[in-house]
């Protein structure tokens, strides 16, 4: 293919400024420059998996009334080391399993409603740090209706990690109303005339 032309050919085609640039670069190379190494994984770089089960509790203000949310959230973490990264060598892949979270409202059998999350998970990539606050949203809806009726709640997870091992060591989870709802819906602004 024509990207593989003979070097003697292309040298003649280069502009003088390009050749000057190349010569300068080669000279710079003679003094040695850092080079990114090929990515390799050793035993100490191998991914580290860990998980914890956290009990979540909270209440939501909803058109159906106050909804009490509770249940277990299984949080799994995989620490991965990027052997070529300068800025963030260790990252954590998190998975939050919200499938066991349920909510109830109403005080009598006649008024009681159950809310579910639809088996939702949330997957996140985060830099590894000793403690991290991860805020995700997840849907919930009346278990007798379909997902189109879903509304949103916020889940705030305070997680702690052992930096040395990369393992998830503890944490807590709280559930509350989706606070971005009100302020992140705007009003139509007319487009300027182009």
């Amino acid at each position, binding site marked *: *293919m024509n*990207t593989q032309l003979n*070097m003697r*050919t*292309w040298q003649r*085609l280069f502009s003088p*400024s*390009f050749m000057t*640039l190349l010569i300068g*670069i*080669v000279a*710079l*190379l003679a003094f040695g*420059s*850092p*080079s*990114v*190494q*090929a*990515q390799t*994984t050793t035993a100490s770089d*191998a991914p580290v998996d860990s998980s914890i089960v956290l009990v979540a509790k909270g209440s939501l203000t909803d058109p159906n009334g106050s909804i009490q949310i509770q249940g277990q959230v299984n949080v799994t973490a995989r620490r991965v080391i*990027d*052997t*070529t990264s*300068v*800025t*963030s*060598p260790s*990252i954590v*892949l998190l998975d939050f399993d919200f499938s066991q979270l349920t909510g109830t409202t109403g005080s009598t059998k006649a008024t009681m409603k159950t809310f579910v999350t*639809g*088996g*939702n*998970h949330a*997957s996140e*990539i*985060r*830099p590894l740090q000793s403690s991290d606050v991860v*805020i*995700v*949203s997840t*849907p919930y809806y009346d278990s007798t209706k379909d*997902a*189109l009726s*879903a509304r*949103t709640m916020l889940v705030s997870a305070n997680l702690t990690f052992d930096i040395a091992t990369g393992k998830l060591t503890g944490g807590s989870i709280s559930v509350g109303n*989706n*606070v*971005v*709802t009100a302020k*992140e*819906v*705007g*009003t*139509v*602004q007319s*487009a*300027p005339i*182009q």
Partner: protein
Amino acid sequence: MSDSNFFLSPKASKARLREAEQARKERWDIIKANSHGQVSRRDLIKMGLFTSAGLMLPISGLSPFGRSAFASSNIPTGLPPSPLGTTTAFSTPMPRFDVFPRIPVAALTPAPTAQANTTQQPVDPALGGGTGPIEGRPPGPIWAHQQFGLLPPAIAVDASVEGAKTNTTYNPQVASNMNSGINPASPIPLKFHPNLPTQQVNKVWTYNGTIPPKLMQVRYGEPVLFRLHNRLTVNQNDNGGFGMHTISTHEHNGHHGAENDGFTGAFFFPNQFYDYHYPIVLAGRNTINNTAQDIMASSPTDAGGLNKVPGDWHETMSTHWFHDHMFSFTAQNVYKGIAGMFNIYSGLDRGAEDIIDGVNLRLPSGRAATTGKSWGNLDYDVNLMLADKAWDNNGQLAMDIFEFDGFLGDRMTVNLTYKPYFEVERRKYRFRILNASVSRFFKVALSDGSPMIQIGNDGNLLPHPVVLTQLDEQGIAERYDIVIDFSRYTVGQTVWMVNLAEHQDGRRVSKDLSISEALSGNSQDPAVGKFLEFRIVRDPAQPDISQVPSTLIPNPDLSNIPVARERVFEFNSGANQTTNDPITTFFGPWGIKTDNQGPTLAADYGRISAAPKFGTREVWTLRNGGGGWDHPIHIHFEECQTLSRDGSASKVPAAERGRKDVWRLRPSGEVKITLQFRDFGGMFMEHCHNTMHEDNAMLLRWEIDGAGTPFLNPLPTPIAKPQGVTFMAPDDILPTAFY
């Protein structure tokens, strides 16, 4: 924003911005020299200008990533921001796709033929002169359209790839009030925003040379002949600095014969055409429901009824795209604009929400009774092509082809328009979201955290809809079909689509942000945050009768199909090239190790890495061999089912439990899938769809063994030339490829 990231802040010192711009210009000389064929990437790596891991050596004055005299840290500093001038976000409407006209096959001259048309024509001296065939498809029986007599094309699309020009024939197939007031009769110059400069003819290459991007609408049981003319410049030096003027179009992820798959080595030259024959058939058509008795396997008629078609209705597909697949130039060519979308309609996914017949899922689309179209209504069925772009100081599209980690743009576009708005009614809409970036992953949410219903993943409707408030990360080439119900808003309100996935480089997402974090404006990644504004402008004229049924398309049952064998593909850096063919090989930092044997190999489309037997089912493991990278891996030809992630079926997210054709492996991750090889034969590909990785050189060829006459074992490799395609024996056959 600080200066410590991929793109410099506009607030960086003027001296720093000048320095970075100067570095970009000087680097541009090398990029141009490479794209003009004066020097290859292999040569530059040998010369030490680039490391085998891809990063241009950080030399100040050459690389924008070089340590700056002005930088305050050791972190590589970035490119100057793409200038916006007076352009503001959400100040121009998002154009709907431009729908390709469907024409009679008889209108094509010359008439399409089963084997490539080898009628000779003069070849431009810039391409070597002499004469060559008018069609660039490899000649002879192996590259003839399979089952051309059985599935003759019923309609045709006649299109081209060419340089940027004004669109005077825009046809969105919806009324202006469904297209944010855009008047289709007004010429559309090729600009990313009305306030930005018009792109020069060879800075942007697209289908038909125009924007908006093109949409092909097809239906099952109606084979399509897609005639694509290469009208790019014959002189590669006129490429606007990057991009290759030879092309090959992949219909991603069509279940077609290999001759229509856009094989990376089956490219064609300026002044040639290539006839792609898309039969639009359900997989399994020769073994399942082969006499077309099942009404669930059906295609809409123009009169509102259904035609039964052979095949497994569980294999029904919906949302594809098509894009260039030129060997080692896919990233450049797709980034230049050679990409469109491809909606497939069926009895199930009709594109007519008011037809009630027990088959139609009645997903949001539009009413046949209103539009007179019994299928393919687009009023409430909207294609979104997300892509990050960058432009130079003159506002012309710019790319850094040597950023082997992955190239990131700093400006978000939707349908090739910078941060547009889209007017919607208070009702349900379907959005077919395509990630058409080179290397960027997205994670989409609504600004108020409201739920979205994911109904499709890649080409396929899911078994069941999944309600989400933030979609999973979306890798390059993945398609997510979602439904948003705007009836929860009031007229006059706005809500935005937001990107939560923050990058520091093209390797992977560095951090997933919460909605509040993404909206705060504190991210150093300019593509994080709001990128599309929805304006709720009115109530629908008619009640919304569309549905999102609780069951969509269940997965095909493979339990009675034995697994013929398993294969393992490991995606690594530090690849070796064991063959030296100057045409079919490429050298780059990326590669694939097959079946745990031998070295990680850089791409050679003359090498056969796998050859599953026709009519069988296999299980493939896709493994990310490295630590902190992500690779969205694409397998051509037939949709697959995901069996497990990291060894566990329960780790497969609900929105991935349908069929798929692209998998984000995730850092250090592993995905196990199962797939079948049936209906057609030929050679196909598997590769990373971070197209910088694909081009450098994380791609392999596999082929179907035993597909019968005329296929050979092994298949010869096509060698494309303007004077005619020749063939050669495979360079290499891996020991585990064949049985």
